[in-house]
C-alpha cells in the first residue's frame, strides 16, 4: 500500500525534490516558505542521493547558482517568497534567455515591499507576465493542494527539460503552511551527464566531446539580427508550449450559469462557494487554471458562451482577471473579487461578491 503522509505543502515540495532525483537546491530563507530549506537541511539528502543543499548568502547568489548548475545540465531548483523572487528576476530573465531548465517555487505573501508574511496571490503579474526584462515566459504551475505541491515538482522538471525553459510553482502561504494527506512518489535516481545528454539532447556544458561543436550557454548576442532570430526561436517554442501544455480543472461547470475562475488556494475557497451557491439555487461552476502560463483561455472562452457572467477570484487587487477578460473578449460580464495584502477571502464573501457584482450587477 502507498504510504500516506501528513505534511505541510512546503515539506512536500522538499521531499518530492529529493525523490525526483534533484541534483541541487540553492536557497535563502524567507517566511512563509522557510520549511523547504529547513526540511532539506534536516533530511540531509546529500547522504541519501548526493543532492546538494546550500543556503546561499542572498537570493541573488541562489538564483545565479541555479543558473550555473542548470548550464551544466543539472536538475536544480530554488524557492523563495515574493520579496525574494523580486530579487531573483534578473537571474530568471538570464536563465530564460539562455534556455535553461530549472524549477523555482514561489510561496507568495502579501506585498508590495516587505508587505506581510500572510498568504497572497499578488505575484501573478510578476511570474506570469515576466518580472524580468525581455520577451520571455516561465511555465507557471499553480497547485491547490499539498498533493499537487509534491506532484508539480516532478511535472515542473519534466516540462522544464522538455522545453529547456524555467518552470515555476506559484503557490501561496495557505498551501505552503497547511498540512494535508500526501502520497509521495517513489525515489528516482539522479541522472548522470550521459543520461541527460541522451534524454534531452547534448546542450549542457559538461566538457567538449570529440567530434561535436562546443556547447555555449549565453544570453548575450550583440548582433541584433541574431538576437532577433533567437527571439523568434523562443517565441516559436512558447507557441509550442501553449499548444501542448495547458492544464485546468472544472468543477460543476456542466450546467453552470455563473462561472468562478480561481487558482491555488482561492480555487479551494471557491469550491466551497460553488457548494454554498448551489444550496441557494444558484447554478455556479468553477474553472481552476492549473497552468497560469500557458493560460486556459480557450476553455474560458467556450464557457463564456454558456454562462451569464464570470467572477475572477484571486487574493490580489485584480491581476489574473485581465487574462480572463482577454479570454472572454467581451462576450459576457467579467468582474474581479478578492481580499488582499495578506487577508484571505471566505467562501461566503465570494458568494456575496458573485451575487452583487455578477448576478445583481
Amino acid at each position, binding site marked *: 500500500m502507498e504510504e*500516506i503522509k*501528513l505534511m505541510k505543502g512546503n515539506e512536500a515540495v522538499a521531499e518530492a525534490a529529493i525523490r525526483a532525483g534533484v541534483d541541487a537546491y540553492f536557497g535563502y530563507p524567507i*517566511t*512563509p516558505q522557510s520549511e523547504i530549506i529547513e526540511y532539506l537541511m534536516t533530511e540531509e539528502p546529500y547522504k541519501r542521493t548526493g543532492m546538494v543543499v546550500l543556503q546561499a548568502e542572498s537570493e541573488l547568489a541562489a538564483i545565479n547558482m541555479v543558473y550555473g548548475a542548470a548550464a551544466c545540465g543539472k536538475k536544480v531548483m530554488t524557492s523563495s517568497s515574493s520579496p525574494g523572487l523580486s530579487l531573483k528576476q534578473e537571474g530568471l530573465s538570464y536563465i530564460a534567455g539562455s534556455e535553461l531548465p530549472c524549477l523555482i517555487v514561489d510561496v507568495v505573501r502579501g506585498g508590495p515591499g516587505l508587505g506581510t*508574511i*500572510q498568504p497572497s496571490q499578488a505575484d501573478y503579474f510578476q511570474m506570469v507576465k515576466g518580472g524580468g526584462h525581455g520577451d520571455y515566459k516561465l511555465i507557471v504551475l499553480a497547485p491547490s493542494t499539498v498533493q499537487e505541491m509534491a506532484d508539480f515538482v516532478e511535472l515542473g522538471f519534466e516540462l522544464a527539460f522538455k522545453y529547456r525553459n524555467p518552470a515555476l510553482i506559484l503557490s501561496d*502561504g*495557505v498551501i505552503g*503552511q*497547511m*498540512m*494535508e*494527506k500526501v502520497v509521495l512518489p517513489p525515489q528516482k535516481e539522479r541522472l548522470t551527464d550521459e543520461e541527460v545528454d541522451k534524454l534531452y539532447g547534448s546542450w549542457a556544458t559538461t566538457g567538449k566531446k570529440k567530434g561535436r561543436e562546443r556547447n555555449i550557454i549565453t544570453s548575450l548576442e550583440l548582433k541584433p539580427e541574431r538576437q532577433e532570430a533567437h527571439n523568434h526561436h523562443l517565441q516559436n517554442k512558447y507557441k509550442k508550449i501553449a499548444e501542448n501544455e495547458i492544464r485546468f480543472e472544472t468543477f460543476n461547470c456542466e450546467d453552470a450559469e455563473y462561472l468562478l475562475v480561481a487558482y491555488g*488556494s482561492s480555487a*479551494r*475557497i471557491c*469550491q*466551497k462557494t460553488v*457548494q454554498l451557491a448551489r444550496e441557494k439555487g444558484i447554478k455556479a461552476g468553477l474553472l481552476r487554471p492549473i497552468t497560469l502560463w500557458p493560460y486556459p483561455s480557450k476553455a474560458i472562452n467556450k464557457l463564456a458562451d454558456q454562462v451569464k457572467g464570470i467572477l475572477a477570484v484571486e487574493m490580489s487587487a485584480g491581476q489574473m482577471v485581465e487574462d480572463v477578460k482577454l479570454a472572454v473578449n467581451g462576450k459576457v460580464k467579467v468582474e474581479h473579487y478578492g481580499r488582499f495584502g495578506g487577508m*484571505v477571502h*471566505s*467562501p*461566503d464573501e465570494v458568494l456575496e461578491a458573485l451575487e452583487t457584482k455578477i448576478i445583481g450587477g
Partner: protein
Amino acid sequence: MTEEIIIAGFGGQGVLSMGKILAYSGITENKEVSWMPSYGPEMRGGTANVSVIISDERISSPILQNFDTAIILNQQSMDKFESGVKPGGLLLYDPNGIIRHPTRKDINIYTIEGAAEAAKQKSSKTFNMIVLGAFLKIKPVVKMENVLKGLKKSLPERHHHLIPMNEEAIKVGLEKVKAVQTL
C-alpha cells in the same frame, strides 16, 4: 461527517500539536484532513491558533470562518472566536485566566480545568492532551486507539517514552470535562 474545529490559545500551550494529533488520528481512519496554522509572529509568544478539518469527503476550503467546535484556551481567543461557533456547535474552554465567560445561548458550552489538572500532574506539557481528552469525550470524532497512533506519529521518536504520560493526561480530560450549557 465533517467536523470543522478551531483550537486557539497562547503560543507554547501545544495548540498546534493538539491539532496535529487530531489530524494524524483522522488519516489513520482514512478520513480527509486539513491542518491550517496561524504562522508568523504569533508563534513567538502571543496567540496561536490552528484550524483542523476532519471529513469523510474531499475538503474544499481549509480556511474557516465558522466552526463546529471551538477549543478556547485564553481570553483573546474567546473574544475572537466565540461568535464564530456555528449555532448548535460546541465551545470547550479552560476557565483558567478567563474573565469574560461565553454568553452565547445557542451553543453547547463545556469547560475543562486543563491548566489546574496539568499542575496536579506536575507537568504543564500534558495540558494540551488533557484538553484533547475533554474534547473527545464530548465529540468522539476519532477513535481513542487512533488518537494514540496519532500521538505516536506526531511525536519524534526520542519523545516516545512520554506517550504513557500523555495517554494518562487524555484520560484525565475524559473524566474532568464539565458541561456548562447543553442544548
